[in-house]
């Protein structure tokens, strides 16, 4: 059986001694293939890249700097999102569950169950006055959600199916002042009961 490609590469690169490949001594095909691999490596290694002028590098760095300056600060990566999205999602789930409860309660429909256990990250909400200052930027999760949705208008949200009539989002955005206060009370009650 002839030598495999990875074995021939190891031999051609010298990471494996030819003497260790006993097959090589008795197989002219493999010996020829090995010689051709070495010759191609030598031919490829002999190809230069024209070195740019020293002036080019200053010019290049200036171009990159301009592009980077225009870009602003580096963005939050996808991999760091879960750390803030998980608590944000938990908060959103709790709010939506209560909102659906209130909304469907008025029309006599079946009440959606409130999650029995809420994740720990929602704890800070228990001491937050949800109605006092909707612009307050203290909560990083809410800030992120606000940033992510800042470019989305209501029409786009509705087209995306996020705020269809009858949905929880729609219900929340159409609560009256007293309903919102009741929502806040229920949320705080639920959070206190779950020990969060």
């Amino acid at each position: 059986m002839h030598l495999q490609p990875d074995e021939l590469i190891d031999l051609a690169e010298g990471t494996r001694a030819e003497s260790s490949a006993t097959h090589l001594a008795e197989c002219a095909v493999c010996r020829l293939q090995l010689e051709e691999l070495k010759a191609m490596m030598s031919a490829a290694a002999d190809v230069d890249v024209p070195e740019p002028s020293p002036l080019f590098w200053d010019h290049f760095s200036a171009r990159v700097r301009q592009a980077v300056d225009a870009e602003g600060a580096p963005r939050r990566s996808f991999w760091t999102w879960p750390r803030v999205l998980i608590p944000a999602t938990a908060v959103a789930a709790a709010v939506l569950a209560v909102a659906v409860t209130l909304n469907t309660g008025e029309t006599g429909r079946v009440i959606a169950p409130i999650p029995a256990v809420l994740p720990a990250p929602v704890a800070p909400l228990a001491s937050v006055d949800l109605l006092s200052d909707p612009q307050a930027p203290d909560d990083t999760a809410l800030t992120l959600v606000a940033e992510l949705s800042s470019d989305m208008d209501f029409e786009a949200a509705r087209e995306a199916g996020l705020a269809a009539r009858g949905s929880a989002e729609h219900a929340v955005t159409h609560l009256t002042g007293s309903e919102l206060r009741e929502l806040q009370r229920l949320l705080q009650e639920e959070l206190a009961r779950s020990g969060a």
Partner: protein
Amino acid sequence: MASSLTWTLPGTWPSRTVTQPTQQTRPVEPGLADLDERALVEACLSGRSAAFDVIVERHRRSVYLLCYRFVSNHEDASDLSQDVFLRAYRGLRSFRGQSSLATWLYRIGVNVCLNRVSAKKPLSESIEDRQFVDEKAESAPDRLLKDERGARVRAAIAQLPRKQRATLVLRMYHEMSHQEIADVLGSSVGAVKANFFHALSNLKKMLGSEVL
């Protein structure tokens, strides 16, 4: 928006104009040049954009050479290199230090180059590009012969399938280990060796005995 100057390059490029960005002087922060990779990345993320200048300065040549190996002309290699650094800057938060910054930049560079070469055939290099080479060390006939042979090999490399080309470039010209190449290309060491083998075999088929 930054202003720019247009000027004519002297000497070897008499008829060529280049748009030169205005040199923006950024205060040199003491100690930045001494920072290691991770510290430089942290400095960038904390808003010290001058730290990214240091990263660019350290890696611009290797990134440019990588791009040149893919496109075989100065203009495209320059544009692609800029694109590599811009993408790196955008994704800086995703750099976790598990590989070296160079490997991470190579990964971005290979992706940028493979996307470009799949959309655009590589241009043949111009005489202007070749004039960058230091020709003092070789006689004119030797240089000419080497240039011609090099051009044939480059043209053959440009015909290789994408992964074979990337493997050959990273192995032959950037001295990366098989494992590092596997990391960059998202494959196994065995696949890297197989790609390298097929790349060299295909070069042999295309070039025949003319370079042997």
